[in-house]
Structure formats: C-alpha cells, structure tokens
C-alpha cells in the first residue's frame, strides 16, 4: 500500500534528481568556452517500483549518472588529422623559409652565374684587357658568395630545425607525463563508479596536443590508455610514461631515441615528423643539388682553364679552388683560387690577344656540365624543386586544415555546449523542480489534514 510518506519520498527524489541535472547544466554553461570540454548530460531513470499486491507503485526518479557526450571514433580521426596538420604546417613553414633563398634577386645564384658568363663574353671581345679580366674575377667571386650565402642559410635553417626537434621532444615528454597522471585520475574515479568526464576531457585535450607533435597511436583499455608512436615505441602505458630522448649524432644533429632505440626515421607525422622531414630530407636534398651545381660549375671552369693560357702565356691554373671529390660542401666552400686577373686563361694559343679559351669557357653556359644540364637549367631545376615542395606542403597543409576543421565541427556538433540547449534544459529542470516542490506542499497539506482529523475514540 502506498502512503503519504512514500509519496513524499518520491517527490523528494524528483527534487534531488532535478537539482543534479541542473548542476550538469550549470557545469556545461560554465565550461561553454573551455577548450576540449565535452558537454555533460544528466541520465535520469525511473526508480525501481514497489509492488503492493495487486498494485505497483513508482518510487520516483534517480539521477543515474552524469555522462560526457563524445564520439571515440571521431576523436581518433581528429588525432590522425591533427598529426597530418602538425606535420604539413611545420614542413610548409620550413619550406617557405627555404625557398626565400631561391627567389630572384641581384645576388641569387642564377643571376650570379649569368653575370659570370656575361663577364667572360665581355672578356672575349678584348682578352688582354685587365679591367675585363678583373670583371671576370669579381663575377666569379660573386658566384662563390651566392653559393656560400645560400648554403649557409640552409645549414642555419637545419640548425634551427634541429633545435625544434629538441624542444618538441621536450614537449612530448611533458605531455606523456601529463597523460600518464591523468590516466591515474581517470582510473581512480572510474574504479569507484564515478564520472571521470572532466579528466577524460583533459586527457583527450593532451592527446590532441600530443598528436599535433608526433604520430600517436591510442590503444584504449578499460580505464586507462596506452599510447605508442605509430611504429610502436611506447609513450604511455597506464600510469607510466616513457621519455623520448634527443641525442647528438655524428653530424651534430639530434636523433630521437626511445628506450635506447633510434626511432628518428620512424617518426613521419606530427610537428616532429614535419621538422625531421625538413631537416633530414628536404634541406639535405636541396644541399646536394646546390653542391652538385657548385662542383659541376667549378670543375668545368677549372677544366677549361687548364686547357688554355694566361696573359703571360703560361698554362692556366684553377679559377675556383677545387671542390671535394665527393662534392659534399662544394657550395659552402666554393671560393676563387686566384687574385691576379692576368691568370685567367683566355688564350688558346698562348698569345695575349687570343680569346679561344674564353670562348670555350663561355660555351660552358650552354653545355651539359652539371648532371646532364647547363648550369642555369640545373639551377632552374633546383628552383622548381624547392618551389614545388613548398607548394605541395602548403596544399597538403590547407587540405588537412580543412578536414580538421570539419572534424572539429563534427565533434563540436556532438560534444559542444549549446547555450540554447542548456537554457531549455535549465527551464525544464527548473519547472520539474517547482512541480516536485508543489507536490511536497500538497502532501504536507494532506499530512496536516490527516493529523488534524478528530480521533474516533475522541
């Protein structure tokens, strides 16, 4: 049999449940601008009924839980896209910087090579003229300077990217520590059946930040998460985080180690992936091309020099200091070997008025002396490669940014706090609370009426 007391308890359950639901709404409103926050939803269920044969009475409402609303599959897509975005934005920024060394200017390599050959053509018109010979030496010096400057800029950029590697490894370690500690907090709440939503949000936020840095693979377990790099190097297992280390290699750059293993080449995504790609692949590739051009040009010019005679009738000596046989460092080290303009071997017959060898040297500008191409064509190839790589990285970056934006939209459409919705919920919970309170007032009146009732034995 139902009683007024039972009804009072039922009404009270309504008050409590609506208060709890309102608390969730309040928390949502408070966190409307909190990054990574997933809205909470009060889960109300009807309490178990009481059977008083032959009737069944409800016993009110229970606030079963407050759940954070999120889509784990979407989260993992966002992580992947964040990795791509981190990689391409870093790579794109690096390549944008690289390509500024290859824009047309008065001192760029292409112009200096053109000017060098122009000066030889001018010398050809009057091979014994010392001022024209000096002009060739000056132009050769400018070629060397242009190569040196560009090679130095690339090396410097490589150095600053290396610094980024060290910093990014530090950031990764900080985040994995944070995630391991959040794993602990999530586990301790979930083990006692509490809602760990806030900590899960924070952990998700940290994983997103980590994804921007490195390719992370998330393996969820009951309460904690295991994080590894895409290639399986452990980052976080349960409550333990595994530090990555940056160790100096033979080239003076930093390699990334995990548990004593060099995993540098395995990191392909995230900002660290992008930084490593720029440092270890893109810039060296450009450096090799520059070295090939510098060595090819210097060797060809020196070769022609050796076949001619200088102003004094002596066999020509090297105009450029011979680059290393391997070609490595040719651009950075390129320098002019002679300071005496009379040593330019313009003559092909030993007389001062012969320009035969100057003509042979001039002809180099249209001969396949560098990788099967003329020096200018080869240089234009470098400009193309550098520009193309920068353009591709930029396109990839824009594309991944767009996808990431869409995914974030999707996440927000599921997990984001809507003030309209919260306002409606608030009104709803408030109304329900008022109604329950009204029920209690009525029961109170009924109780009073019952108490005031004259006794039968009176």
């Amino acid at each position, binding site marked *: 049999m139902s009683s007024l007391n039972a009804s009072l308890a039922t009404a009270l359950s309504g008050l409590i449940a609506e208060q709890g639901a309102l608390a969730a709404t309040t928390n949502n409103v408070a966190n409307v601008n909190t990054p990574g926050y997933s809205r909470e939803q009060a889960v109300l269920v009807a309490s178990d009924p009481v059977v008083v044969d032959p009737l069944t009475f409800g016993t009110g409402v229970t606030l079963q839980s407050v759940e954070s609303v999120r889509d784990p599959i979407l989260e993992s897509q966002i992580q992947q896209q964040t990795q791509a975005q981190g990689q391409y934005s870093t790579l794109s920024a690096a390549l944008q910087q690289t390509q500024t060394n290859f824009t047309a200017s008065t001192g760029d390599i292409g112009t200096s090579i053109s000017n060098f050959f122009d000066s030889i053509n001018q010398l050809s018109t009057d091979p014994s003229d010392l001022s024209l010979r000096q002009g060739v030496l000056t132009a050769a010096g400018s070629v060397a300077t242009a190569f040196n400057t560009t090679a130095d800029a690339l090396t410097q950029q490589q150095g600053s990217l290396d610094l980024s590697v060290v910093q990014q490894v530090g950031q990764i370690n900080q985040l994995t520590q944070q995630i391991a500690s959040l794993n602990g907090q999530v586990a301790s709440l979930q083990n006692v059946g509490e809602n760990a939503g806030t900590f899960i949000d924070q952990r998700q936020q940290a994983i997103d930040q980590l994804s921007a840095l490195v390719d992370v693979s998330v393996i969820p377990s009951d309460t904690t998460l295991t994080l590894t790099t895409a290639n399986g190097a452990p980052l976080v297992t349960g409550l333990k985080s595994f530090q990555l280390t940056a160790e100096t290699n033979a080239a003076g750059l930093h390699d990334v180690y995990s548990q004593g293993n060099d995993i540098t080449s395995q990191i392909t995504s995230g900002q660290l992936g992008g930084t490593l790609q720029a440092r270890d692949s893109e810039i060296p590739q450009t450096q090799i091309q520059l070295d090939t051009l510098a060595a090819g040009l210097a060797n060809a010019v020196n070769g022609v020099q050796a076949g001619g005679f200088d102003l004094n009738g002596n066999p020509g000596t090297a105009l450029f200091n011979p680059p290393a046989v391997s070609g490595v460092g040719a651009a950075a080290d390129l320098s002019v070997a002679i300071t005496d303009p009379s040593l330019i071997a313009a003559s092909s017959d030993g*007389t001062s008025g012969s320009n035969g060898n100057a003509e042979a040297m001039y002809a180099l500008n249209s001969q396949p002396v560098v990788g099967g191409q003329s020096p200018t064509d080869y240089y*234009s190839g470098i400009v*193309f490669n*550098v*520009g193309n790589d920068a353009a591709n990285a930029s396109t990839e970056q824009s594309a991944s940014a767009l996808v990431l934006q869409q995914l974030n939209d999707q996440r927000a459409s599921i997990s984001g*706090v809507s003030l309209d919705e919260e306002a409606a919920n608030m009104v709803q919970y408030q109304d329900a609370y008022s109604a329950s309170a009204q029920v209690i007032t009525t029961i109170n009146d009924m109780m009073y009426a019952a108490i005031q009732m004259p006794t039968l034995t009176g």
Partner: protein
Amino acid sequence: MRVNPDPYPDLLAAVAQTQQEIQTDEQEIASGQSVNLPSDNPAAAAELVRNADQASQDDQFQRSIGSIQGEMQDADSALNSVTAALQQAISLGTEGANGTLNASDRQAIVVQVQGIQTQLIALANLSYQGNYVFAGTATQTVPYVLDPSSSSGVNYQGNTGVNKVTLGSNFSLQTNLPGSQLFSSGTGMFQAVQDLITGLQTGDTASIGTAVNELSSASQSVDSQAVFYGNGLSQLTSQQTYLSTETTELDQQETTVAGADLPAVISNLTTAQTSLEASLEAIGQTANTNLFEYLK
C-alpha cells in the same frame, strides 16, 4: 540534427583565409607579378630563371657587339686608306715607268713611294685600345717593322690567329683578319712597293711595270679582304636588331608567364574584401543570440 553550437572557429578560419587571399592579391598588385615566390608557380619560377639568364645574355651580346664594332669600323677604314695609298703608288709607278724621266726625277718619285711605304706600315700597324688590329692574336706585338734585310722591306711579327666572339645563342663572328692574310698573301703589297722602289732606283722600266702590276693585284686583294669587315659590321647590325626583338619577346614571355592578371586580381580582391566584410558582419550578428537572452 544537432549542429556545432560554436560558429566562431569556422568564422575566424574563414576570416583568416580571406585575409590571406587579400594579402596575396595585394602583393600581386604591388609587384605586378603573379610569381613572387617559387611556390606560387614552380614551373613558371623555373622558366623565369631561364628567361632572366637569356635576357642577361642578350644584354651582354649587345654590349659585346658595341665593343667589337669600334675595332671593326677602324679596321675597315684603315683598309680603305690602304687601298687609296696603293692606288697612289700605282699612279706614281705608272709615272716612273715613263722612259723620258731622268734619275733625279725617279729619285723624287722614290721618296714619295717610300712615304707611301711608311703610311702603309702605319696602317697595317693600326692599334685599337692598345691592341694591334692586324697582328692576328699577337695583339701586343707590332705586326710590321721595317727590315732592310727582308726582300719586302718589312717583317711580319704577328701570327695567323683569328678570334671568334659568341654574340648570340647560335651566332658567333670572326672579328679579325691577320696581317699575313690581308697584306702578304700572293706577292703582297709590301713586296710590291719594295719592288717599285727598287725598279725606280735602278731605272728598269720593265721592273717598274711588273711592280705596278703587283701593286694592282695587291690592291685588289686588300679590297676583296676588306669585304670581311664590311660584312662583319652589317652582320653586327642585324644581330643587334635580332637581339632587341628577342629581348622584347623575352619581356613579353615574362609577362605571360609571371605577370599579374590585374583585372582578375583586382576582381578577386574586391570579392575577397566583400567576403571578409560578410564574415565579420556574421561574427557581429552571432554575438548575444541565445535562448538565455529571452528568459529574462
């Protein structure tokens, strides 16, 4: 369906993208170039490198032509003077072959012919900016010096070398003829003049007649060789014209490859500005519209 309740990130992303577009457009308008960085259009940037090199070469060819022209013009006019001097020697020889002249008359002619000999040596030793023009490639060596022991009265000290200068992608020009070829082929003008002097001194009219014939063929030889310089000079002029045309073409090509399409860019810019204003307007409108506003 639930929608993303927070429109700001998308709106701000749109604003950022539009601002980027505006910046790119403004840069294009300011520079007049659509390729300001290699990544703007890698293929065009590479083409611009080759184009700039070609333009630089063409400018240089023009300068080299200018340098060569002066020397070839001087050589050409020196050769005209040589022909004139030889004609004068022929007249003097014809005069000296007259049997009625006595020895002192002939001696007077000898003096005049010797004067011509000196003049011819001076012309053959023409120097241009410190270089002997007719010395082959031995341009620092005086090509002709008087040498009484030589049958021609002079000695050629130059060589037979010639220079060619590249003055176009597929054009190079020989810029000199050595004195040995110009003045000493066949009997040679110096031999002819020396023969005339000897004939006049000995009074042998037959020898004088032979010398006059030699002079006449030497003059023809120099004349025909002088065509080399005339031809060369006119080739230089046509090459100048060709190079100017090519420079213009390269300029046009550069504009085609990398010039900003101003009407299009300005139209883009206007669109982008409108779009930016719209995005900003949207952000302004979005503010303060939620249900809480209406629950007061």
